[in-house]
């Protein structure tokens, strides 16, 4: 699987950010998103924490910790609109392909 493949998922899973198959095409401008961390893949390389210092810190073993998010949102990190571009870079550049960007679930 490619890190750019944001469109993975099953028919009834939430629609991926961006048009299916177009890889890098962006989310709806101005909309917040949700960044999913697959902890089984994450190795704590730390690239995401450098690209998204406003959102992510590192714990003492190097793994990302979402700053100021409730526990339920620490694996599905809420990304404000102004950081969605940086989050898309983090998804694309994660050496472990452990990140995925999705639209925020409806409330």
């Amino acid at each position: 699987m490619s890190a750019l493949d944001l469109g993975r998922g099953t028919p009834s899973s939430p629609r991926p950010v961006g048009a299916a198959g177009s890889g890098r095409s962006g989310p709806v401008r101005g909309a917040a998103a949700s960044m999913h961390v697959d902890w089984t893949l994450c190795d704590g390389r730390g690239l995401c924490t450098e690209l998204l210092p406003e959102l992510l810190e590192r714990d003492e073993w190097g793994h990302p910790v979402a700053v100021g998010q409730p526990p339920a949102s620490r694996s599905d990190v809420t990304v404000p609109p102004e950081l969605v571009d940086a989050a898309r870079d983090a998804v694309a550049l994660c050496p472990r392909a452990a990140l995925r960007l999705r639209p925020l679930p409806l409330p």
Partner: protein
Amino acid sequence: MTTLAPPPVPSSTGGTRHPAPNGVRRLFAAADPSLAAHLAAFGPLTLDHAGPDLIAELQGAGLDGRGGAHFATWRKLAAARAEQQGRGGPAARGRHRAVVVGNGAEGEPLSRKDATLLDRAPHLVLDGLLLAAATVGASRAVLYTTPRLLPVVEAALRERGDASDVTLVEAPDTFLSGEASSVVAAVEGRPAVPSDRIARLTTSGVGGRPTLVQNVETLAQLALVARFGVAWFRSVGAPAEPGTRLVTVSGGDGRSPMATAATPGGAGRVLEVTGTMSLRRIVEAAGVDPTRLRAVLVGGFHGAWLPVGALDLPFTREALHPWGASPGAGVVWALTADGCGLAAAAEITTYLAGQSARQCGPCLNGLPRLADVLGRLARGDRATWLPGEVTRLAGLVTGRGSCHHPDGTARLVFSTLQAFADDVRHHLEGRCLAGGPGPSVPSATPTRPGEGR
């Protein structure tokens, strides 16, 4: 077979309905595990209700999942059925046909209610499995359980002619083998460890197929609802939490939790109880003297402590909620008045750290550190930073795993600090509220781990 079946009585729908079990002895109403005793106690299985009718009945009955998470059973069946229908219903083929799995892994070391149920009432579980499969339109039904119980279920399958399609999958003896995504992995033939999920299993589970994983007690209860209906199901128990549930009560004898769990033949007593019974009554019914206790651990190793003053609470989610506890998988372990809650919790946390699937960094790294720091506190290390570090580490791992193992471990640890706050203070002062020799280890760690990083 030794039981005489009561005569069938006419039902309002014109057919005959077998009389329902009286009182709170429901799941164990059959005299023995044989098919004959099962039929004598419960009557024959019909799949007439399977489908939307059964889903509506389960909603009316208010049956929740008995594996620990309390998820509404009807919702899972409805979701799996809807997914199956969306993929073509009964005409769907191959990877579009749903799978139903009865989960009898029972990885909780202090639980043996599922094993007892499979030993004594395997046919009720199989009835539930077949009803669930027919309801969601599954083409595959699997019973997943431990090596010891596989022959028991095999023998039950051989007794009946309607379950030849049920396949058996072996559950390894690990804490996480019963986690729903571990179950899916095992059914797929992979190691039974959790996986990262973004879709519900009812949408995409075994081989991408809609998958319903239900605890075996949930299936047995489902089989009773299908036979005897909503009004009967709700005729015992608390209005908000009707019916019976199985509990495993152990401890109260001065042994540690892991020593209890290592008891040959299984720990504790399995009881069928209702939500109108207090914890005190449940503990007493299991032969444990509640006046000799300090606290009880409820829900399992991912559960929470209740001080002995809270024993008069009924065993319901609603009553236990303010304590951060829930009936969970029905585990109740009693800490005696001369036992140290910090020592018991440290032992459990060490076990849980060792049961990490070692896939997720925060769990793999954080739980052993958490167990180490809590262990120091329990053993009498008087470094004043220990309680704060326990809190920090429990908070650090929470919400940061692909399964809930770190969250559940943190829940137990937070509950420990709350329930045994006085013990923490005494330990730091070099004393222990529990009887026995008490801690005597001086602080060997002048600096906090991680400082100066």
